[in-house]
């Protein structure tokens, strides 16, 4: 298997899907002539042409709104919102329309729509460009919210998202594009809404996703050298949330740490820990710990920013607290 970057894996999935189905097209700010602000769609414009690689004005509402309209006609748009911070300008379309039209019109309308976007801090872009608000979007029934943490999952989940007849918010991590991993060639599909064990272990369960998967695996390596064998469960999809591998792991380890990049309050950790308490209370041997971002808007200064973001050492420390 080839070892490629996350960026290449996402690009490959898009390219292969567009070659497969002419109903698929991409649209967004700078996806075409520029080649994508994160270079994911470099070369697409020349190969697929302006009709299938559509540069849009800086109009998030028009991007998502018109992608919904196009999806209703049977096309399969992949709309790019440059960063998730800009998705707030399109919130109404994501929340009030894409998540609701199928239900509200009694199943008549289908939205084979993917919204690709980029989440996360750590690039000194300050408070408005560095957020990880993934959990907000996972609040809404009708949406599917996916956030891969490995190149292989990025490829497989993006293909599944494009083939889905449901609207999918596909959240990439700003600092994972260079991450390398083995990625199967060709038609590789990872089902939406399925969590998975990324590292088996027996002493403690670390539940995580996206960027924090990378950190959690590194934390697990450190812990292993100190004799603690951590199992790392990757949620991959935040909605639908698949708790089965989490609960199975917890029943074995009886201890859990949940690591996410976003703020702790009302976050992914809050949801996952509540569900563990609800579904496996008799197995709890220690209070569940959450590792998350400090409750401040992210600052520009590098030291301040890193002090606010969750670190590998925070995961290691939290695991030691629950042991």
């Amino acid at each position, binding site marked *: 298997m080839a070892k490629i970057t996350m960026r290449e894996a996402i690009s490959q999935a898009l390219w292969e899907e567009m070659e497969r189905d002419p109903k698929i097209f991409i649209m967004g700010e700078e996806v075409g002539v520029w080649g994508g602000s994160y270079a994911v769609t470099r070369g697409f414009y020349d190969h697929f042409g302006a009709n299938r690689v559509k540069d849009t004005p800086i109009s998030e509402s028009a991007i998502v709104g018109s992608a919904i309209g196009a999806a209703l006609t049977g096309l399969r748009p992949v709309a790019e919102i440059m960063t998730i911070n800009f998705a707030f300008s399109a919130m109404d379309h994501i929340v009030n329309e894409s998540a609701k*039209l199928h239900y509200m*019109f009694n199943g008549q309308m289908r939205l084979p729509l993917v919204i690709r976007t980029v989440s996360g801090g750590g690039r000194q872009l300050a408070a408005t460009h560095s957020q990880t608000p993934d959990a907000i979007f996972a609040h809404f029934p009708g949406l599917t919210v996916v956030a891969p943490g490995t190149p292989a999952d990025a490829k497989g989940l993006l293909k599944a998202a494009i083939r889905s007849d449901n609207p999918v918010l596909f959240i990439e991590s700003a600092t994972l594009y260079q991450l390398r991993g083995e990625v199967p060639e060709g038609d590789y599909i990872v089902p939406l809404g399925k969590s998975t064990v990324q590292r088996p272990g027996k002493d403690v369960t670390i539940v995580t996703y996206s960027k924090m998967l990378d950190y959690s695996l590194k934390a697990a390596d450190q812990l292993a050298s100190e004799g603690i064998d951590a199992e790392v469960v990757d949620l991959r999809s935040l909605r639908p949330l698949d708790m089965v591998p989490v609960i199975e792991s917890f029943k074995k380890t009886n201890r859990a740490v949940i690591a996410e990049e976003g703020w702790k309050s009302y976050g992914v950790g809050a949801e996952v820990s509540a569900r563990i308490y609800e579904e496996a209370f008799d197995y709890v041997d220690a209070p569940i710990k959450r590792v998350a971002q400090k409750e401040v808007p992210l600052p520009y200064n590098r030291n301040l920013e890193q002090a606010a973001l969750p670190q590998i050492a925070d995961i290691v420390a939290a695991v030691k607290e629950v042991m």
Partner: protein
Amino acid sequence: MQKKEYLELYHQMVLIRRLEEKAAELYQDGKVGGFLHLYIGQEAVSTGIISARKPIDRVITAYRDHGVAINSGIPVKRVLAELEGKATGVSGGRGGSMHMADISLNYWGGHAIVGSHIPLAAGLALGDQYAGNPAVTIALFGDGATNIGYFHEGLNLSKVWNLPVLWVCENNEYGMGTSVPRASAVSDIRQKAIGYGMPNRAVDGMDVLAVRAAAEEMIEQIRAGSGPQFLEANTYRFRGHSMGDPERYRKQEEVRQWEEDDPIGNYQKKLISGRHATKADMDAIEKQVDDEIAEAIEFAENSPEPALDTLFDNVYVEE
């Protein structure tokens, strides 16, 4: 136009008027829940516009949608059943007054967040442009919607991409209770289209034939590749914004004056003076509408509530 066509427009306008009057009664009886926005006074706009479309042309509108639903071909019984929240309603009792659609009739709803369907309309037109379909999307919205960002993003995109859309502003003078001069930088709403380089016209929205003629012409130009165009139909709602509107923002005298410009009354006069139909023809249609409404109410009343075990149906497409 054949006599049959003239009378069909009359039939649709009277049907909408009676449906809305009945809906208000049912609301007062507690049989209709939520919000109820009546189309009384504006019947000529949607009737004229939609009569000018071909079946391949898509229609999308805002929350004051019962008239558009009828003009698009949804049987009145399915509209009334939806108002009563019944399983046989056009949206299965999931949508209610503000969310009616039947995509088999190329009617795409019924959208209740002001202006949010405007970018959707651009997308419907994009779908046809991408597929090479010779179809035009007709998007209706109120004057209030032209003050929100979606409108400006949607119009801009439609022009940049030369999308086949007819934008129709139903200017009924008020966004809820705020009059156009108090809410919009320009009171001639069509001036906003000039900023997007778009061909635009205003039409008397109380004259169904004028509306139809304008729409026919513009739709065919758009179909021929003109890009998006903008039509402002000047009209008035005779009832409140929704049920329970105390109407403190307008004087009864103003309403009374507009009621003299009743689109149905205007059309009756035209039919007679143009010798397109007789009083007897119109009486026959009114009788037919009364029967249709009575039958529709019986259908709605006798229809079942949605079964509780269908609560979770259609949250997602099953895959």
